[in-house]
């Protein structure tokens, strides 16, 4: 029986966070620090004709004003120590600020004012005057929809079977178009960096989901060996994908620090965040479903179009999961992209999946009504026993159980199919459901453990904790397999001095880094076993590493715990104060034989004010099948977060652009509406654990994204059930219901 895994544990960094001691990027001190303030441009496309910095430079306290005219050229340079990129993402064609007079998007940085104080930098930034040769721009994805094409990365999408033909002959059809507004992550912590050079060595405190990628980016940018760059990011105040790429500010900050030979801090304003990193793209989706009268799907055609930028390709693979959710012999599901004059979009919580599943799961609801089959029933009729795309079996999939348990708990039986048939006083009540799906990903990851004779351990890995509870879960895993107590484990992350870990994205951290910590702990045990067995009289003689475990300072045989050695004694005999092991975990070969995915069923209740069109999500149940749960407390919080994000996407969030100027109209939290406390009510999680020996040694799948995936569709379906109004465009603001 595990001692810690699967038991709820409060966050080990909880005290640091509630006392204000947890330090985020902008909060690190450096001697002689100067403050940078970014100046944004005001046209969407064109060139900078002139930029007048004289007044700003004369302002008190100003150290220097950087523009494209006096900023050194940054970017990929020959660098012998620089490893060639492994994939497209690593090629790093990311936008770098102040490199030319070219304007690619509105609110692009055109200057950086550096001053002795923040107030001085902010004031002087207003004195920078630029003029532009503006060119005709396009920021409306609708306008370029017809020119959308397949991303050049990856193979072009191929149809399965003959979807067109099957659609033609289908007994029942649903054809509809869905739209999702552009959205921004809006983590509470603005992106920030503090950069300091010591000769040609750079230390940078940054808000990052992957310190190693920031290191690579900066090494490339400045033409220095990667080993010269240290990136530190111990706490991240939320990111949700917005810090997966380095963004333009770390290079900008480090550039200023290098030029001025003193540390510089740059913090995005809330407004600068809207063009300082990517966004969830504006997405148009067309779905055609064909089915037999029985409900069996015979054809699925799902096409998504979303924006990318004019200087980079980005696709969130909107339709990716459509291929794997339902058993259907005929399918075509391409995602196309169209360039517009906006910053490059990026991954935003449950990227692609939540957008694609919004359209698919709403269309399934529409089909259910057309067939007069209960929406849950329809999903069971089309249940995929094997991965429909590859034909491989799932390593585990308890989705059917999720549907059933969720329906029981929610009281789905009481639901009347007919829209507008349920009420609570004057409010219309609607119940909706949708399926959640996400991949059970794993990437190579490393962790290092130093185990000391006194039972304490120091564990490191350059992963990140943007909020899911990585500090805590890694502490639990280490304590579980080192057989000590969590208080004896000190886990550190977010530092390029630690072993390499993948980005905290895609819900793969526990699977990847957790497996590395697990492996490192087993390596420590194996090392101790070898040391113990140097003694002829060792009671563990002949035991293999797999036969032993560590517990409370003893190394013992699993099948006969009476056979054990005292670890401190073994170490003393070998003159060792500590044992250090580094372990790299990699996805297993076994995984390739299976489809590895996480699933969930999501149920929501909405109450709609028929006079005001206001929608409240009064109840949400997440039933989740994602392997083994390490820390149910933090996992539940992830599910809650998923529901809250789903509420935002479904009901309130939209980045609005004035296409005449190609400018975002609501780059602030007053007009970009994220859910607040009053918008959130009961949220419950039911964990259906799966015994999955294939996905990774811990049997875990990720859940950070999964919990959000079905929510917008479930809400939209519930709104239809409540009002009879099928809103196919998110967010469902009151005007759409009146």
């Amino acid at each position, binding site marked *: 029986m595990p001692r810690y895994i699967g038991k709820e544990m409060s966050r080990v960094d909880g*005290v640091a966070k509630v006392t*204000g001691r947890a330090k985020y990027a*902008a909060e690190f001190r*450096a001697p002689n620090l100067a403050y940078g303030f970014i100046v944004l441009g005001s046209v969407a496309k064109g060139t900078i004709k002139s930029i007048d910095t004289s007044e700003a430079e004369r302002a008190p306290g100003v150290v220097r004003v950087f523009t494209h005219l006096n900023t050194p050229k940054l970017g990929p340079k020959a660098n012998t120590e620089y490893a060639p990129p492994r994939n497209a993402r690593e090629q790093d064609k990311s936008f770098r600020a102040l490199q030319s007079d070219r304007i690619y998007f509105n609110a692009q940085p055109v200057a950086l004012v550096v001053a002795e104080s923040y107030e001085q930098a902010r004031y002087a930034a207003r004195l920078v005057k630029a003029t532009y040769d503006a060119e005709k721009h396009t920021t409306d994805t609708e306008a370029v929809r017809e020119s959308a094409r397949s991303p050049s990365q990856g193979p072009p999408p191929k149809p399965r079977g003959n979807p067109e033909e099957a659609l033609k002959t289908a007994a029942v059809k649903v054809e509809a178009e869905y739209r999702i507004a552009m959205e921004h992550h809006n983590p509470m912590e603005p992106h920030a960096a503090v950069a*300091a050079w010591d000769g040609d060595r750079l230390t940078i405190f940054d808000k990052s989901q992957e310190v190693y990628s920031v290191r690579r980016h900066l090494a490339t940018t400045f033409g220095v060996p990667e080993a010269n760059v240290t990136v530190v990011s111990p706490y991240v105040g939320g990111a949700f994908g917005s810090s997966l790429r380095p963004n333009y500010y770390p290079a900008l900050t480090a550039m200023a620090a290098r030029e001025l030979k003193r540390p510089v801090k740059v913090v995005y304003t809330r407004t600068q965040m809207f063009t300082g990193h990517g966004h969830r793209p504006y997405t148009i989706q067309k779905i055609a479903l064909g089915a037999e009268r029985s409900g069996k799907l015979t054809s699925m055609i799902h096409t998504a179009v979303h924006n990318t930028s004019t200087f980079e390709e980005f696709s969130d693979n909107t339709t990716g999961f459509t291929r794997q959710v339902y058993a259907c012999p005929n399918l075509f599901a391409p995602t196309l992209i169209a360039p517009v004059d906006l910053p490059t979009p990026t991954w935003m919580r449950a990227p692609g999946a939540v957008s694609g599943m919004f359209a698919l799961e709403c269309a399934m609801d529409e089909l259910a009504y057309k067939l007069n089959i209960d929406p849950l029933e329809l999903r*069971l009729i089309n249940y995929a026993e094997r991965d429909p795309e590859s034909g491989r079996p799932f390593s585990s999939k308890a989705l059917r159980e999720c549907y059933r348990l969720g329906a029981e708990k929610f009281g789905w039986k009481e639901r009347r199919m007919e829209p507008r048939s349920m009420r609570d006083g004057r409010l219309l009540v609607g119940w909706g459901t949708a399926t959640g799906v996400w991949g059970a990903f794993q990437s190579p990851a490393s962790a290092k453990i130093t185990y000391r004779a006194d039972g304490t351990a120091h564990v490191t890995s350059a992963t990140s904790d943007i909020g899911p509870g990585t500090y805590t879960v890694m502490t639990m895993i280490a304590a579980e397999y080192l057989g000590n107590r969590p208080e*004896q484990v000190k886990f550190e992350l977010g530092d390029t001095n630690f072993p390499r870990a993948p980005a905290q994205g895609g819900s793969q951290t526990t699977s990847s880094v957790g497996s590395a910590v697990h492996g490192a702990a087993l390596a420590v045990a194996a090392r101790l076993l070898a040391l113990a067995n140097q003694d002829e009289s060792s009671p563990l003689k002949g035991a293999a590493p797999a036969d032993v475990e560590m517990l409370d300072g003893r190394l013992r045989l699993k099948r006969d715990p009476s056979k054990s050695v005292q670890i401190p004694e073994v170490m003393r005999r070998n003159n060792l104060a500590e044992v250090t092991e580094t372990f790299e975990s990699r996805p297993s070969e076994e995984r390739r034989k299976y489809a590895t995915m996480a699933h969930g069923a999501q149920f929501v209740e909405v109450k709609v004010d028929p006079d005001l069109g206001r929608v409240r999500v009064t109840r949400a149940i997440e039933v989740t099948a994602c392997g083994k749960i390490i820390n149910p*407390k933090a996992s*539940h919080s992830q599910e809650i977060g998923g529901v809250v*994000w789903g509420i935002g996407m479904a009901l309130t969030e939209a980045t609005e652009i004035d296409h005449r100027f190609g400018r975002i109209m609501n780059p602030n939290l007053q007009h970009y509406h994220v859910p607040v406390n009053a918008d959130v009510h009961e949220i419950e999680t039911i964990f259906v654990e799966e015994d999955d020996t294939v996905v990774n040694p811990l049997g875990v799948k990720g859940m950070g994204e999964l919990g959000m995936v079905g929510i917008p569709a479930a809400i939209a379906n519930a709104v239809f059930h409540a009002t009879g109004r099928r809103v196919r465009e998110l967010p469902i603001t009151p005007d759409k219901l009146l």
Partner: protein
Amino acid sequence: MKDDLDETSGAELSADEEALLREMPTLGEVGQARRTFLGQTLAGSMGLFALMLMEKEQALAALAAEPGAVFAAAPALENPVRVALKVNGAAKTLEVDSRTVLLDALRERLEMTGTKKGCDQGQCGACTVLVDGRRVLSCLTLAATLEGREVTTVEGLARGEELHPLQAAFIKYDGFQCGYCTPGQLCSAVGMLEEAKRGDVSHVTEDVTAPFKQLSDDEIRERMSGNICRCGAYPGIVAAIREAHTGRESARTWRFVEEEELARVRKELEADETV
């Protein structure tokens, strides 16, 4: 840039803090649980994490000014205003740029980074602190206006190593994930409970003439809606405040499906294809 700091009191609680702590409700039987809980949580973690961060910072602290470092000709401090105020009970005298807001004075001048900058325009609540016991947005409060005032930040809520009941409850109910909005949520909650005690009504108060008793969950949600939590930890925040306010513990809202239950469901699913 020089801060003319004079710290007259340190560990002693200010009258302000004493008052805040007094005003917290009695926790009754929950207090017991809280103490046990604190015992478990505090062991190691407070010192540990602070230490980890100090190590990281030390790398830079030793950094000498590079030859050729560029500085501005003009003095760093413009339109200086002298302010004497109390921060978490300690007297501070500051010379600030007249444009400096309390938030930046705390973070950049006093190196008290517990108070967070989320939007810098009064739209997110992350910078909430207490001034003379009332919650204010420190990003919209000019430091120069605080002469003689008492500021309480998140750093001033705990009594030494003993957490404020709200801090402990936030940990207990996982009322945060990334932790960035948390200081603002905590200060806001302390101020909000005080407002409620004074009888302040809110948008959702049903009978504004009735004497105030206890906040409903809807009242807590409404009154805490000026503090955005992008991680969405609102249910935990409400549960934590509810417990601090009423002493009532909240039931868990998650559960594992037991093996027998799962076996039953699987059997039923085999027999019957419907849900």
